[in-house]
């Protein structure tokens, strides 16, 4: 029973990471019509920057530095390379962002080495919380709470700001937004940087929980794509629902039948794609544009 509860909590933490990455993917797709295979790289960069800064200046500094560094990187990437590919076909965009992910992964390997790193939590955060029958690391609960707050902020951004309006309109009809004179070019760089910053921040915050190696970006990217597809590309709540679903599914399978923990999410995605290709909460017209 306690193990089950533990697995459910673990699934929540994992799922929230997926949600955060998937939300970034979704708003980027909505505004730029770009399926960003390099999004996992943002997570990894954030994790490494957070780790390095945190080791010298403390965790809070790491959590501030990581999203800023990733946002700058993403902004530059968008301006220098990606913008040329906005109007190209989706396969070219996939290949390009896949290539960027490769380059980032290998750069990280060169700079930080291939070994696995983990940020050691300061004593103050090492405590445990007692939740009914089980004891759970306090930092993980703090992390989950923090990601939820972050997601609420992102939701407010999408629903309440002018940029968010462009994002929402872009998901519906990108061409119309351009015709209306929406400054999609600037908005897209900002949204791209923002999506990156979210992934970077979560990457830094998760570095005491999940260890980091150069392959981490890809390891988190693929499940996050699964999340986006299951939930529905372009749907905020779809990303939330999909992320929690996939996180829990993975965590529970790891408990009940460990060897299948990796494959079960693909099974889930294949079923969703075959039965409801637009995803659980997605809109059907989006699928042809991806």
């Amino acid at each position, binding site marked *: 029973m306690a193990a089950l509860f533990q697995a459910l909590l673990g699934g929540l933490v994992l799922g929230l990471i997926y949600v955060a990455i998937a939300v970034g993917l979704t708003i980027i797709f909505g505004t730029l019509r770009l*399926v960003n295979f390099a999004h996992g790289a943002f997570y990894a960069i954030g994790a490494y920057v957070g780790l390095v800064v945190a080791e010298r200046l403390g965790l809070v500094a790491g959590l501030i530095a990581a999203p800023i560094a990733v946002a700058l990187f993403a902004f530059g990437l968008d301006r220098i*390379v990606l913008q*040329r590919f906005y109007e190209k*076909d*989706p*396969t*070219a965009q*996939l*290949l*390009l962002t*896949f*290539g*960027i992910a*490769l*380059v980032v*992964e*290998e*750069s990280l*390997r*060169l700079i930080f080495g291939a070994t696995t790193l983990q940020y050691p939590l300061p004593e103050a955060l090492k405590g445990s919380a007692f939740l009914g029958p089980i004891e759970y690391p306090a930092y993980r609960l703090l992390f989950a709470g923090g990601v939820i707050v972050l997601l609420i902020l992102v939701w407010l951004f999408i629903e309440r700001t002018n940029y968010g309006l462009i994002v929402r309109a872009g998901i519906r009809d990108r061409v119309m937004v351009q015709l209306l004179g929406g400054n999609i070019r600037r908005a897209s760089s900002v949204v791209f940087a923002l999506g990156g910053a979210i992934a970077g921040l979560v990457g830094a915050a998760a570095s005491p929980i999940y260890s980091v190696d150069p392959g981490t970006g*890809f390891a988190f990217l*693929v499940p996050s*794509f*699964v999340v986006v*597809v299951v939930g529905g*590309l372009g749907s905020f709540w779809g990303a939330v629902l999909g992320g929690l679903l996939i996180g829990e599914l993975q965590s529970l399978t790891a408990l009940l039948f460990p*060897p*299948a923990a*990796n*494959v079960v999410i*693909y*099974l889930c*995605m*294949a079923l969703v*794609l*075959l039965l409801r*290709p637009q995803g659980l909460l997605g809109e059907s017209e989006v*699928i*042809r544009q*991806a």
Partner: protein
Amino acid sequence: MSVAAASASEVQPQRSLFAADARFALLTALGLALFPLLLHPIGGYGGLATQILIVSIASIGFNLILGYAGMLSYGHAMFYGGGGYIAAILLVRFMATHPNLWLAVLGAMLVMAVLALLIGSLTVRLYGIYFALLTLAFAQMVYFVIEQGKDWTNGDDGIQTIPNALVALGPWNVDLTTPLPAIDLGPFGNLSDIKLWYIFAGLVLLAVLLFMRALNRSQFGEVLDAIRENEQRSVFVGFNASAYRLAAFTISGALTGLSGALRALYDGSIGVDAASIDRSGSFVVYTVVGGVQTLFGPVAGTGAIMFLENVLSAKTPAWRLIEGLIFVAVIVFFPRGLSTLFKRRETNPRALFRRMVRAATPVEPDPLLKPAPEAHRGGPSSIIETAKLGKWFGHFAAARDIDMRVDPGELRAVIGPNGAGKTTFFNLLAGTIPPTAGTIHYKGREVSRVSGTARVHLGIAKAFQTANIYTDQTVRQNCRLAALARVQGAFALQVFRRSTRLDDVDALAERAMRRLELMDVADVRAGDLSHGDKKRLDIAIALATQPQILLLDEPVAGMSKDEARKTEGLIRRLATEMTVLVIEHDMEMVMGISDSITVLHQGTVLATGTPEQIRNNPRVQEAYLGGHSEAELSHP
């Protein structure tokens, strides 16, 4: 050159084609023979050369999907690893005493073809990231099966002792691990570095290249290109796009399986890595770096990257980063791959001249092209008839309760204010979208649920509101594709035969071009045409499918007055041979050419009648106020 000389040269391609094939095979064989020798001075070795050749086959198979079908598969390792494991298991379990390479490899190819057929039938309808992720998902499942099926695969340990399979050639059993005789070649190493395996792999690769070369030029390759370029048009000239993609995916799976099987046998072992995500990614890198949509691109890319991996890795830890940078640079600067740097433009002056001569030669009307006997005016039964036809989008009825009957040979105009549901109605007739209510009968047969592709073959063709053409192909090729669909049907697995060998296709295309007065621009790239010519080409494409009903959605929209009048005359002439339904806002044209007019308003039929009746119908005038003025309606 006289016409007679031109027709004499028509016979030639047959023979010169064979000569070209032989020359191609010879040059490729020569290149493959020199490859391991040239690899030696730059740090390669015989084994690496063999591996490159074997893995190239997988990249070639992958390119069929990424390059020619235009779909990014992120799961091809399932066929590579799967093929390797099948071959290994066949040898270990069933042929331990008499290991036969042919049986193992063919078995692996066959199983992978079946696997690709099954997975493809679930995936080829999806696009972009969805296709990539779904293929990845299936690859992960295959990986899981391999990892967990420990009784057969040894799980994570892999199969380490695959029996050395022999190549049965008549009475001989050839052992491929035999080295070549020891001859010192100075800087190019020693010939004994190379084993018979290299020659065998080279022959297999050569066969695969010849196959792919034929496939690219075949009718199948032509249609696959067309579907990649413009899927919607391809579906509405009558090609079953999913079937073509599925066939390509199956062939691709079999080739990748062949490669995986050969690699396992060559290595004498196989591990679960062969089916991993990283493996799938490597085919993407190899193929893109070398050049998608090229014959040798995948081979060149595989060679270059595998060389870097094996040679550069010893020199610098940054070798993977260098690979990644090369990959990104290729995508940004040479989107079609490095090998295109060395490729000359394909213009064959002789072929161009032949075409010019042919274009100038009058063509006798083909008996095949006689108008269908049903297409006579005022027949006893309708050619197309709808009853209570409706299309709802959520709570919005774009079309509802449409009852309409068109007689064979009629020229019917469908008019109505913007948003009246005209295009929706045409889409329902053509099968672009399924109806939510009601029925469509075509020549007495219910077709409401028949696919758009199948309706083209029944004789319903459509020209689109915005000219829907293959912009990168010539006008002639545009029409030939439509004619090809008519002559060969929705799907034909003709991976060897060229469509140029079908005379009917040229005749049909030629006739369609003549009817729309496009002969002057027959060899112009369609994307370079004027707006009016593009619109007429769209109609010509529809015409080349030999329709009995032609649906024209605003054929003269955006044309100048002169062009519109010219097109109007062409349409009037077409209507003497087939039934024509036309949506048009140009009232002058509508009143001038139609036999009868149907007015749609708010998704349903407001009135049907002769132009005279419609002009004097008070309800029509009312509906049009605000849309078109009364004056417009009353002046033909």
